[in-house]
């Protein structure tokens, strides 16, 4: 009898967590899905209006700006963070003195929220008090750095700050990956006469494939969820030049009293996220099963 009970213990242990996730994540997603089909404005209501909110959403210039920004931001952010992360990891893997210190410096931005560093970034990028001003004071009068004030370039300043925050983390992932590479493979390549760069290009970097994938997933979800960053640095401005889906959703749901439209944008965001993450998870879990 007690042995039978023992068999159920694992499931009983897992049950509360799983139930919490089902209710607080999937239940809420369903609820949001429902809201997106209603005429909810300031507070949720249950007046069904079909797909009208979606039609409205895709008719909004803002939403299209937000999607375009996400595309620009996402692409640059993911590509540069991965490349920089890998590059720094390779540099750090060269038996560097003070590696521990440098690694910590590269990693620490991940520890701080943009609520905290946003102020410093805003200062730094502001032409009046920041880098441009400093350069002028140092005598470089022609120096110009006004991206954050330029509606065509402001999104790139967001990219700079975002890369600052997460490239160190990506670096740590790659460093872990590099340290896990079997030395014998490298020795074999050296015996084959491959030069250092060739070894990296042809052997080590291809072996980092799983890390690239993990980094891609982490960065993608950070990109789609970017919110604090935008709010702290530009508030979506100049104009709406740095609006992103997350800020769009927040403002329509909570400040513009168009909860239905906000909910429909949330559902579109979820679809985007899931279409990236689900195939990855599926292949990962499958791979795990095959290994067994």
């Amino acid at each position, binding site marked *: 009898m007690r042995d039978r009970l023992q068999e159920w213990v694992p499931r009983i242990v897992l049950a509360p967590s799983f139930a919490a996730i089902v209710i607080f994540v999937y239940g809420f997603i369903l609820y949001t899905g429902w809201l997106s089909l209603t005429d909810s404005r300031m507070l949720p209501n249950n007046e069904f209006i079909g797909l009208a909110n979606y039609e409205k959403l895709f008719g*909004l210039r803002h939403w299209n700006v937000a999607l375009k920004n996400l595309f620009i931001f996402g692409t640059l952010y993911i590509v540069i963070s991965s490349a920089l992360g890998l590059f720094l990891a390779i540099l750090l893997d060269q038996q560097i003195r003070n590696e521990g210190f440098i690694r910590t410096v590269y990693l620490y931005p991940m520890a701080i929220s943009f609520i905290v560093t946003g102020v410093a970034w805003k200062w730094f990028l502001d032409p009046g008090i920041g880098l441009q001003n400093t350069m002028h004071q140092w005598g470089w009068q022609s120096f110009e750095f006004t991206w*954050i*004030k330029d*509606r065509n370039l402001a999104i790139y300043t967001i990219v700079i700050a975002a890369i600052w925050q997460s490239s160190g983390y990506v670096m740590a992932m790659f460093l872990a990956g590099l340290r896990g590479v079997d030395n014998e493979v490298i020795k074999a390549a050296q015996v084959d006469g491959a030069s250092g760069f060739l070894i990296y290009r042809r052997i080590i970097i291809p072996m980092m494939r799983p890390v690239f994938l993990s980094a891609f997933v982490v960065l993608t979800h950070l990109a789609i969820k970017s919110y604090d960053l935008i709010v702290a640095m530009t*508030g979506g*401005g100049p*104009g*709406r030049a740095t609006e992103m889906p997350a800020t769009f959703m927040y403002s329509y749901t909570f*400040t*513009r009293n168009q909860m239905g439209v906000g909910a429909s944008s949330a559902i579109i965001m979820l679809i985007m996220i899931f279409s990236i993450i689900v195939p990855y998870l599926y292949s990962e879990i499958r791979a795990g099963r095959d290994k067994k």
Partner: protein
Amino acid sequence: MKFQYALKASASVAVLCIAAPMAMAEEVEVLHWWTSGGEAAALNVLKDNLEAQGVTWQDMPVAGGSGVEAMTVLRSRVTSGNAPTAVQMLGFDIKDWATEGFLGDLSEVADEEGWAEVVPPALQEFSKYDGKWIAAPVNVHSTNWMWINKSALDAAGGEAPETWDDLIAVLDKMQENGIVPLAHGGQAWQDGTVFDSVVLGLGDDFYKAAIIDQDPEALASDQMVEAFERMEKLATYFDPNFSGRDWNLASAMVINGEAGMQAMGDWAKGEFLRADLVPGEDFVCIRFPDTQGSVLFNSDQFAMFDVSEDKVGAQKLMASAVMDPDFQVAFNTVKGSVPARTDVADTEFDDCGKKGMADLAEAAQNGTLHGSMAHGHGASSNIKSAIFDVVTAHVNGEFSAQEAAEELAAAVEAAQ
């Protein structure tokens, strides 16, 4: 929930029921976004007043421009059935919350103290819903002001501009003098504040038709195109670094002579006074050109939520304290606004304040007192946001004036 609160309340009763005039000592939780030094000091007047009556003040500040964050917090608090006692709120938000049925009823206190006689009808529009008092107005801000650095003005001819053409002449002159003619911060609500004044400058009727009534014809009219052209013209007098700047930094530019003038609500005065500038000598306050005699207002009010029985007493005490003439004077002299009560003497106020109070009374009389769109008193927040979107995009050069007017009509329609 209520049980918990009852517990907390009874705990504070034990501590605080000393020398309270009311039988019950209670507490009020106040959600607001007055977090800066001067505002907080002004609120402290209210807090001390209430604590003297045995009511504990539980402070729930949520900072962030014009209460955007605070409104999100409020939504979550109300949804969870844990609404604060009183919430600082602007115009249409009060109406919206009243429509949803979450606000309490202050009529008893209001009738007793005769609020109806002392609060201008334009404000009552927002303080009452369905014949019941739901909010206690603290102040009236007026948004169609222009703040000018006196020495910059002197250098530009010394004549305060009264019409649009005057204004352009002065701005041009200032530009020649090598200063930034118009200090501005590129944030949606600041763009909107200027836009409000520009539209009003084209006529009270036009403002009413386009902004208050959102008449599609007015929104897409030639007059609207002209309004956008004027905005475009004004934008040429901004410095290139205006985007995202806080309004008080723009004020600082006027204060230290870096810029000539700023179009901003009366709260800007506080910045000038704190920098020890004297109205009339060091700086000049005028109505935005072409808007003399009209007043765009917004009014901070404490909306009172429908709370449990045990807290109603304290809520009423607070409502009464907000309407207390002494508090209204104390708060508004600091804040730069004018009291919501019209029966308060203006002796404590400076020149600009006196002018503001007189203007308000006059405008109320003449029917030229309008709610400010940019500050939530001209249109509900979805309409307001839609207008902001277009105005801000236009200020940043995304549309021509013609396109902007069309876009505006479309955006307002979409938001309705």
